[in-house]
């Protein structure tokens, strides 16, 4: 960004979530050279993410946990440590958002600075040293008084109500239990028979982080790079092994797996948080119009 006037904090939703700043679509992990072996490549420098929506911030904090727990991923975590994040509360409602149902219409953690448009001004709060440093660069800005804070509360309440383009009847906290009983539910077949296995829902999802790793040799034929790229569990070869054996060869098995990851498997690894933040990108991106988590979980809640 070169001009402040280009900044559009009133956008409704980005096409891709901010995960690409921490796990780029194409990310060099290692370099290698014949005779010398492999070397870690950690290419990152301090950067500022300005204007992240609350639901995306929640997704980032979930990915932070995934990539730092157990065998910590130094590539992800180095990028994350270099990031200063400014969250902005949603001003315009995107076509398929349901963050108002997911508790992600506002966010308490993970950010350095929070911006909330109140009347025609922005209320600014900092949470961290980095955030405070950013704020100290603002000259002649009055402190917010109680009235402003109350108005911000109203913005949150309003967002909770209007970020509901789809009506979720199944409380997110019930998702793991619903899935516990839903393995053989007919919905997986019904939806998946329309699936093109294009992986769009994976690509636009802020909590999809599965990846493939590949090698590329430079033209000198002695050196090259190992890099990772985004992968998706909806793609036909995702669970394939050598010998042409595919452990999830049916669309329905892949479709089901994705919802189980969002509602059960990943939550079990991140303290029960549901790994769907209600951004609605999958709903918009799906060409077959089958990727609406609200429809899926409402249906599961309603029995068969």
């Amino acid at each position, binding site marked *: 960004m070169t001009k402040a006037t280009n900044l559009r904090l009133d956008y409704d939703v980005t096409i891709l979530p901010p995960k690409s700043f921490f796990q780029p679509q194409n990310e060099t992990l290692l370099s290698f050279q014949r005779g010398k072996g*492999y070397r870690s490549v950690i290419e990152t420098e301090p950067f500022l993410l300005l204007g992240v929506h609350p639901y995306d911030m929640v997704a980032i904090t979930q990915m932070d946990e995934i990539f730092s727990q*157990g*065998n910590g991923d130094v590539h992800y975590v180095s990028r994350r440590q270099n990031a200063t994040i400014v969250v902005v509360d949603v001003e315009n409602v995107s076509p398929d958002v349901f963050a108002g149902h997911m508790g992600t219409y506002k966010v308490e953690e993970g950010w350095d600075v929070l911006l909330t448009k109140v009347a025609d001004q922005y209320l600014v709060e900092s949470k961290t040293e980095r955030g405070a440093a950013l704020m100290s660069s603002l000259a002649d800005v009055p402190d917010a008084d109680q009235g402003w804070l109350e108005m911000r509360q109203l913005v949150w309440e309003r967002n909770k109500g209007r970020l509901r383009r789809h009506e979720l009847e199944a409380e997110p906290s019930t998702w793991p239990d619903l899935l516990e009983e839903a393995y053989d539910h007919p919905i997986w077949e019904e939806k998946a028979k329309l699936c093109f296995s294009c992986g769009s829902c994976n690509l636009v999802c802020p909590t999809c982080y599965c990846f493939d*790793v590949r090698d590329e040799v430079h033209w000198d034929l002695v050196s090259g790079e190992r890099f*990772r790229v985004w992968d998706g569990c909806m793609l036909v070869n995702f669970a394939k*092994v*050598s010998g042409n054996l595919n*452990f999830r060869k049916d669309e329905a098995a892949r479709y089901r797996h994705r919802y189980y990851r969002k509602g059960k498997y990943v939550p079990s690894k991140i303290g029960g948080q549901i790994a769907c933040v209600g951004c609605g990108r999958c709903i918009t991106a799906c060409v077959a119009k089958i990727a609406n988590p609200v429809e899926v979980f409402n249906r599961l809640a309603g029995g068969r």
Partner: protein
Amino acid sequence: MDSTSTGWNDIYLPEMATLLRSEPMTADERFFECKLDSGKELGHMPGQFVEVSVLGIGEAPFSISSSPTQTGSFQMVVRNVGNVTHAMHGLKSGDKIGIRGPFGTHFPVEDEMRGKDIVFICGGLGRVPVRSAINYVLDNRDDYGEVTILYGTKSPAERLFLDEVEAIVSKENVKYLETVDRGDEEWTGNVGVITTLMTDMMVDPRKTVAVICGPPVMFKFAIMSLYKMGMVDKNIFVSLERHMKCGVGKCGHCQIDGLYVCQDGPVFRFADIAEVQEAIQ
């Protein structure tokens, strides 16, 4: 904050190893023995796997076939089926590969298998990881009861480790039984799937542990045969195959429902996965 402030090791960085042996075993399988260039032991347990890198080609997971009782090097058997394996088949003694690992769970050779009769059930390449446990048990022969090794392949020519059979059967209380799906002119042994070796078999279910590794279709039938002998899920251990791409529980490829085979497996107690829908198909 600079980029190195985590102080963490890079979980994706292989260390280099040198091939001590690279020899053909069958038409499709090749035997590798290698040693870490650091001089350290790999430090694995039977049933674990490593990620092998071939420079410029890629990385793939392979079972370790040697027992940790054999020190100084470790062994693998690799079938020529894909990019990495094809490149490995072109490697010769003295060539370098990258190694990450060992990863995953292992057969409970030091815990529940100790003092017990053991039934090893291997189908095809399943013999490769199970060999690590077989050799471990035979190298500590006094710590275990009767040992039965059942080994099935598609054809006699696909049998692995034939040169080790004599040493295996020379040990006390060790039975070694083979079967093939289809024999050839010289084959006089059993013909049929692996469960045909189990029809008249007797075990004492109270003091027997079974270890199974083979193609996906084999598990269900082998387990049914074990049930007929009175065995129960908690005494059956299976080693499952999936694509353990990263080996460290991140990339998602090896997932079986909520489990990561690279971390929660590849060796599972059958009682723990009997209800896991995607595990045994």
